[in-house]
């Protein structure tokens, strides 16, 4: 072997060794939209709390603002906001916690909380809340109830985000459907509402649909959920894992919704139903979550109104979920860090007027009753919906059950099975999930 070859060999070996060492000190990868792809690579400083959030777009900006506001108050420990992709959030949170690399602060939907509890991902807050004097009466008691498992509180409710009814004022005014106050009044009865939408169809110009709505995924499931509970349906599943979904009511809700597609009120199989309303020439009305409010406000030339999803079947019941703050289990954390985190929760709750700007109904009752909240356009039009939201009874399977219900609704709305089959398959799937 010549000296040159030996030298080359040593050089190569050194390069390999060096790159191996470099790979251990992992770089943080941030996507174009500002989401961190490997959040576990961000290590907290001594006086820093890592916060993994799932908010993107408009919401993300408001949360970022709240974190900056908090850090500007010179707290003992600052909060570092790490944005994650929402679709991957829970998988990443749960796997990171399982290997002891989770964040100090996390977000959970209220429906997901029992699962996180069941998988031992969340820490009870009571001790740290007492340590910093957190006043539990400042948050919505309905949601707080849902955050309490086996007598301990596991989450600080931040908001409620229900599904609401948006409408394009310009289109409806031209069709002569707004009242003297320039508002749309929806009939609060199933048959009347259906006739009203059919009538709207005949009054709208050619090519404009009365309602822009999805045929798949979350949204149809949400209003099926609302309508089923408006019929006073029993809980889909109880906390003791007893399936109580009532066939006649569920089938009635499914068939009622299907009529809207079959009779040209909603375009069938619309994929991007947001754009279809937002382009101002696809549809006159639109049903989705309150988070769309801030996006709609930013559309130039769009004049819109918003109201609660109508009560069609007697009892006022709505779909909604809540964002809550949680303390994920973290082996190297301590009481001091967790108490500091509670201070952050307290600050955000008290200042959640900022969060209301994102469209949410905030959980802090003082903020909700404040003049500033009342002064926000649109938000007050649906603030009371939060009181009628029906949550899952706490159980560790809410998310997969919701997924199963959605898939069966999708197949039903696509015309591939009857409502009865959709019900039977839903039950079969739930049984398979909870075994």
């Amino acid at each position, binding site marked *: 072997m010549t000296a040159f070859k030996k030298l080359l060999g040593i050089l190569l070996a050194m390069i390999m060794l060096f790159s191996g060492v470099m790979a251990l000190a992992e770089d943080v990868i941030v996507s174009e939209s500002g989401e961190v792809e490997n959040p576990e690579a961000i290590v907290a400083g001594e006086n820093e709390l890592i916060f993994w959030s799932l908010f993107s777009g408009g919401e993300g900006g408001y949360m970022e603002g709240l974190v900056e506001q908090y850090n500007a108050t010179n707290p003992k420990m600052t909060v570092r906001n790490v944005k994650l992709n929402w679709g991957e959030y829970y*998988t990443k949170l*749960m*796997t990171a*916690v*399982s290997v002891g690399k989770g964040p100090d602060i996390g977000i959970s939907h209220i429906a997901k909380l029992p*699962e996180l509890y069941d*998988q*031992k*991902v969340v820490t009870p807050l009571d001790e740290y809340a007492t340590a910093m004097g957190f006043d539990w009466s400042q948050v919505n008691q309905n949601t707080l109830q849902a955050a309490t498992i086996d007598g301990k509180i596991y989450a600080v409710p931040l908001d409620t985000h229900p599904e609401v009814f948006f409408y394009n004022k310009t289109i409806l005014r031209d069709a002569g459907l707004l009242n003297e106050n320039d508002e749309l009044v929806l009939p609060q009865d199933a048959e009347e509402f259906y006739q009203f939408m059919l009538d709207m169809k005949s009054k709208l110009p050619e090519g404009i649909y009365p309602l822009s709505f999805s*045929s*798949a995924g979350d949204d149809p499931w949400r209003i099926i959920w609302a309508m089923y509970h408006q019929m006073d349906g029993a809980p889909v599943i109880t906390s003791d894992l007893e399936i109580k979904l009532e066939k006649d009511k569920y089938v009635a809700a499914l068939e009622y919704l299907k009529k809207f597609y079959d009779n040209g009120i909603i*375009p*069938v*199989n*619309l*994929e*991007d139903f947001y*754009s*279809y309303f937002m382009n101002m020439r696809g549809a006159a009305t639109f049903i989705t979550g309150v988070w769309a409010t801030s996006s709609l406000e930013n559309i130039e030339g769009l004049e819109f109104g918003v109201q609660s999803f109508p009560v069609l079947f007697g009892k006022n019941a709505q779909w909604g979920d809540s964002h809550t703050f949680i303390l994920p289990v973290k082996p190297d954390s301590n009481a001091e860090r967790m108490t500091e985190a509670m201070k952050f929760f307290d600050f955000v709750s008290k200042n959640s007027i900022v969060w209301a700007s994102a469209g949410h109904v905030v959980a802090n009752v003082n903020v909700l009753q404040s003049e500033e909240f009342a002064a926000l356009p649109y938000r007050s039009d649906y603030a009371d919906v939060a009181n009628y939201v029906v949550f899952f009874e706490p159980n560790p*399977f809410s*998310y*997969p059950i919701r*997924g199963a219900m959605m*898939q*069966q609704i*999708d*197949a*039903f709305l*696509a*015309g*591939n*099975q009857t409502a009865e089959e959709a019900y039977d*398959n839903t039950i*079969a*799937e739930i049984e*398979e*999930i909870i*075994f």
Partner: protein
Amino acid sequence: MSAKRKRIWRNDLVALVFLLPFTVLYMVFTIYPVIQGLYMSLFKWGLMGKQDFIGADNYTRFLGDKFFWGALWNTTKFVLYSTPTIILMSLGLALLANRRSPLKRLYRAAYFTPNLLSVSVISFLAIYILQPYGMGFISNLLKTLGVQEEIFFLKDPQLVWVSIVGTTAWWTCGYNMMLYISALQDIPDQLYEAAAIDGASPSKQLWSITLPLLKPTTLLILLLQLIASFKVFAQIRLITNGGPGHATRPLIQYIYQAAFEKNRLGYAAAMSYALFLILVVLSLIQLKATREGDR
């Protein structure tokens, strides 16, 4: 120690050093997970780790799980639809790209290019192309041509398979085409010349010379394709997410959902072994077939 023995010993050592990196990685990332998976399949196992020992319960459970069989049937459907499609398309393209033509290189490059794209890219292309209401390429094209009817490629239980299989075939047949082209070039020209002199028409030549001589290649592609198709997941997850309903949910997606949506890692591991068994059988057939082909 004689000089010769010393040299052999040295050779072995060198070989070992070269093999070591692969062996270590193979043990850590393939063999260990296989054994760990078997171990996990005997437990109720959540995301945070082992819960209870339940023996073969996970195995008996999936045998009676109609959603498992539904998903396995969807995977099988995909195999049955995609394998012949891909083989015929690759063969057709190879015959086209192998003709004497000044554009030969362009054909090959054009047919092979999709193969270089990642699964997410081809999936989003498919979604874009198939969107209804003038938002997708096909719908837009039909609108321009004056067709008012909407086609819901991703909602109809038959068309959705056409969409998925079509996308997959477009994406993967370039590679198989290359295999066919190299086999085509191995066929000696004299055979065609002799056949031409004897008055055989081009189609006669195709049936009597080309296709019979491509048989070993076809067999190879068939088996590779069967194995690859049984592992289908990513493009379906991205294009339809198993929908409408569960009409296209393949077995791997069901396993994925059991593990990461329902936190049943033990059950997911047990179901993985069903797929493992299928793949082992196919691989053994492949090994046997290629060995016979070599003989």
